[in-house]
């Protein structure tokens, strides 16, 4: 269990690497590296001036967790959508996305196939509960 923010961040990134979510790791590291822009309140200039500063470990960890949630949330959206439609009487077992064609050519480039996992039953309830706990702890930011 991580006791401080840097340790928690390192643990989170390692766990993401172990699940092969390297794109998320890159996103997190990029956003953290950019730091944050704040107004320079000590500036004597009439117009607003801004400074860029690095994130402290707590800020970096909270940001990383927010990005983790943002990446998992769509799985819950798709899964809940299917659940809602089943409850409305639709017997379908899955949701998929496909691109339309005009004269044999796709109407939009498909650089990445839209492939979102689906959670059902207890797995959906459990993941929703865990993510909701995290969102509650993150609070309104």
């Amino acid at each position: 269990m991580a006791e401080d923010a840097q340790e928690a961040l390192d643990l989170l990134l390692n766990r993401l690497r172990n699940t092969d979510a390297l794109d998320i790791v890159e996103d997190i590291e990029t956003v953290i590296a950019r730091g944050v822009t704040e107004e320079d309140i000590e500036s004597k200039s009439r117009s607003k001036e801004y400074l860029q500063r690095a994130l402290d470990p707590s800020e970096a960890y909270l940001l990383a967790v927010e990005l983790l949630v943002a990446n998992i949330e769509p799985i819950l959206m798709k899964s809940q959508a299917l659940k809602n439609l089943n409850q409305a009487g639709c017997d379908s077992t899955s949701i998929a996305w496909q691109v339309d064609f005009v004269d044999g050519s796709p109407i939009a480039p498909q650089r990445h196939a839209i492939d979102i996992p689906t959670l059902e039953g207890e797995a959906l309830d459990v993941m929703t509960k865990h993510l909701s706990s995290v969102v509650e702890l993150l609070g309104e930011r």
Partner: protein
Amino acid sequence: MAKIKELSDAVDKIFSGIGATGTLHLNSATRERAFEAYVFSLLVKAVIQATGSVIVKGIKTGANPDPIIFRGAPGFMSSKNQDFSYAECSLNGEVFEVHVGVQYVGTSRALHEVDVSIYSHTGAEQVRIGGGLPGTRKLYAAIECKCYDSALGVSLGRTFVGLVSDMGGLKIKAFVTNGRGTGLADYFSKSDRPHPIFSLSPLRPKVADRFVSHVEQKLRRWCGVS
């Protein structure tokens, strides 16, 4: 601010469930599509709650398509290139359809992509038979969906207001997002602007219930349900 240890423990529990999800990384277009599907399902829920009936149909296979196929990019209501799905709904004698990612011709003749829309069933049948693009005369609802992981800007609101102004007389117009944006909330506070719903997500069931109730009330009023 949450203690780091409490948050870290909560994150641990997420990872214990991640094995069931398979791949974790989703690009932004995928997130938008997932959000639209979720909003579509909430509209279906609102129709049921208003005492209506719903049948999900594929344009090629009919009732209960499996899988339910949504458009990966905005397209044509009449297209049978894929088995695109929609919800055929009936409420107090009014028959209409809920669609995702369909293009409409606005009153200015400009082409608009509406994330989630409600259209007349009769009108949709005519479009499916005759081809062409649906106009806005029989368009009853336009819902703009934005799935974000950062703060939202007012420009998004202005773009949707512009779209809605070209859509004729809508019964339901809403801007929904899983994000937050104080500036956007202020922008939509004027009475003639689309209804905004922020923080819409399966992680916030009370917000989802509020959105469903909002749509339900609009449907009841439009279809004359007491």
